[in-house]
């Protein structure tokens, strides 16, 4: 097998808040294989966005990468100088933000913003950059006649496409997309996902897709990394995650999601409780307080992320009993009542 394009190894990222050090991402470990789409899923505050942003080293002033390595095409992103990192951004790793409105400057025409990236980062002449901007708009399905528009003249879907065009401008190897379709209507959502996938195939891109939406993961991601309270709790190919999850959190997420293709509407089951306070994380497994299968061991001893089967990583003491737990997890009564 080829070496992965990106290999995140035991990365911890901490925010300094007052006198406290809040560890938002703790010992995260996962790979992004060459040319694949990897989902990074979890609820708000699980560290998925912090992790994703750290890959471009554009993180908040009070945040720092406290430990670990991020091997990208032979170099460690964590230890690169700011100058080397700067040349990596856009050219090798590009970022698509959640709200494209925030990534486009409202006072400049869209064309100017794309041409600026191409000239500044790609060293293109003005006329070459303009030609490339037209190509990029065609690639993401916007009429190049709209290049002279200002961002506010675009619809939400068009802005998101423009942000994708901007990210692809210099043909990066890796695109990190932070909830790129969350704010969009279902039809536009589907169009953008289809577009991303066909671009990924044509250009051989690798994509990290940050999302909280399991159906987005199911639709587009080859592999999925599930995060909970700053930890990677499960990492495997997406079909396995949805059909044979090993971690109770992944089992619970599936129960909580409405499925249009099911025979009846059934009952959705929430996961009771809320994630722990990361300023004061619990001993043992961080999911234990919400987990219907937690044992005494889970409450004192933190489970390590281990490879249960080739390519299937999980951090759960009871992973060996997963077949039985999955059956139990399907019973609504298992999950108690939510607060």
């Amino acid at each position, binding site marked *: 097998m080829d070496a992965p394009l990106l290999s995140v190894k035991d990365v911890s990222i901490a925010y300094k808040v007052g006198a406290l050090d809040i560890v938002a991402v703790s010992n995260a470990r996962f790979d992004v294989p060459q040319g694949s789409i990897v989902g990074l899923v979890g*609820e*708000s505050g699980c560290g998925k966005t912090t992790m994703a942003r750290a890959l471009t080293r554009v993180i908040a002033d009070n945040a720092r990468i406290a430990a670990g390595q991020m091997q990208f095409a032979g170099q460690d992103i964590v230890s690169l100088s700011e100058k080397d990192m700067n040349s990596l951004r856009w050219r090798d790793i590009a970022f698509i933000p959640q709200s494209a409105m925030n990534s486009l400057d409202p006072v400049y025409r869209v064309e100017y913003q794309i041409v600026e990236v191409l000239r500044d980062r790609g060293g293109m002449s003005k006329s070459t950059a303009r030609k490339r901007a037209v190509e990029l708009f065609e690639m993401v399905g916007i009429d190049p006649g709209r290049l002279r528009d200002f961002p506010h003249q675009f*619809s*939400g*879907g*068009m802005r998101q496409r423009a942000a994708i065009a901007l990210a692809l401008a210099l043909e990066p190897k890796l695109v990190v997309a932070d909830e790129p379709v969350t704010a969009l*209507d*279902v*039809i*536009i*959502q*589907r*169009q953008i*996902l*289809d577009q991303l996938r066909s671009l990924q195939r044509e250009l051989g891109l690798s994509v990290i897709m940050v999302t*909280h*939406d*399991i*159906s*987005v993961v*199911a*639709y587009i991601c080859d592999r999925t990394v599930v995060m909970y309270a700053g930890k990677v709790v499960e990492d495997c190919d*997406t*079909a396995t995650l*949805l*059909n044979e999850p090993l971690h109770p959190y992944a089992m*619970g*997420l*599936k*129960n*909580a*999601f*409405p*499925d*249009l*293709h099911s025979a009846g*509407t059934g*009952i*959705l*089951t*929430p*996961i*009771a409780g*809320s994630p722990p306070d990361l300023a004061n994380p619990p001993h043992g497994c961080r999911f234990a307080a919400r987990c219907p299968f937690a044992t005494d061991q889970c409450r004192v001893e933190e489970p390590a992320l281990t490879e249960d089967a080739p390519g299937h990583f999980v951090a759960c003491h009871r992973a060996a009993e997963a077949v039985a737990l999955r059956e139990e997890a399907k019973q609504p009564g298992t999950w108690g*009542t*939510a*607060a």
Partner: protein
Amino acid sequence: MSDPIIELQDTKLHYKIGNAVSAMMGLSTTVKAVDGVSFSLHKGESVGLLGESGCGKTSMGRILVRLEEITGGSARFEGDEIGDLKGTDLQRFRSRSQMIFQNPFDAVNPRYSIRKTLEEPLANAKISRSTWHQRVIDALDLVGLGDPEQFLERYPHQLSGGQLQRVVMARALILEPDFVVADEPVSMLDVSVRAGVLNVFRDVRDRLGLTAIYISHDLALVRYVCERTIVMYLGKIMEDGPTEDIVHDPLHPYSQALVAAVPTPHVDQSHDPLPIGGSAPDPRNPPSGCVFRDRCPMAQLRCADEVPQPRRIGTRLVACHFVSV
């Protein structure tokens, strides 16, 4: 069947946009947010209003709780024109019809404790102060916030999104309304807590026999809470019928696109290609005839000339010239 609680006849909500200068230049124009919508709701019925941003679904909901006044047609609540209600009738209407807003963090005053948040509607409705405490406790209990006393003196930022959305729901329910409009109440919430809020909504509605409108762009969510769905596009109704029928056999080409677009949590299913492209046109300048025609795979010449009127096809009303059973 009993008389409808809500009855809309050719209801219109047109916004004038632009100013005096643009009017002189001939640029001033009208946005038809709701354009000739008719439907009625019977007591205890739950209807999903489904459509993309800008289709008029939220405007529709706001009309029904009188946050917007209609500019044409009629909108009645128990036979009374909503826009004509005055004085004590209006006050009574205000306590009987309530709205649950999309973003719980925007819907509450951050400087009000949960107790004060819930007491405000009681004060507005001039409810006797001696009953307030019990009603607040009951309302919190109703939305599944167990041990309600512990929430009373807390502030919105001390609650999770799921808890706060339940408080917003409790505030809507505390006056024991007959009719509730919920505008995408779970779209801001994490998936793991969405299910809990939806379950509370279903449970409370059934227990109180509420009539409800649930606004969303996600058919999977609408299906979970409503037996009937109305599909809207650019201010008009495209299809109206039992949710299960629309899910399994959408008739209008736009409903078909919405159903095809809903992502599901399965990997190995063949996804139908999206039958439509583009996005909704500029509402200031909708197409002639059928508003959906410029994205419709079935459109023909007739669609540009003639606005399709809703026709009854089996269990449904469909506004399309070419749909047949």
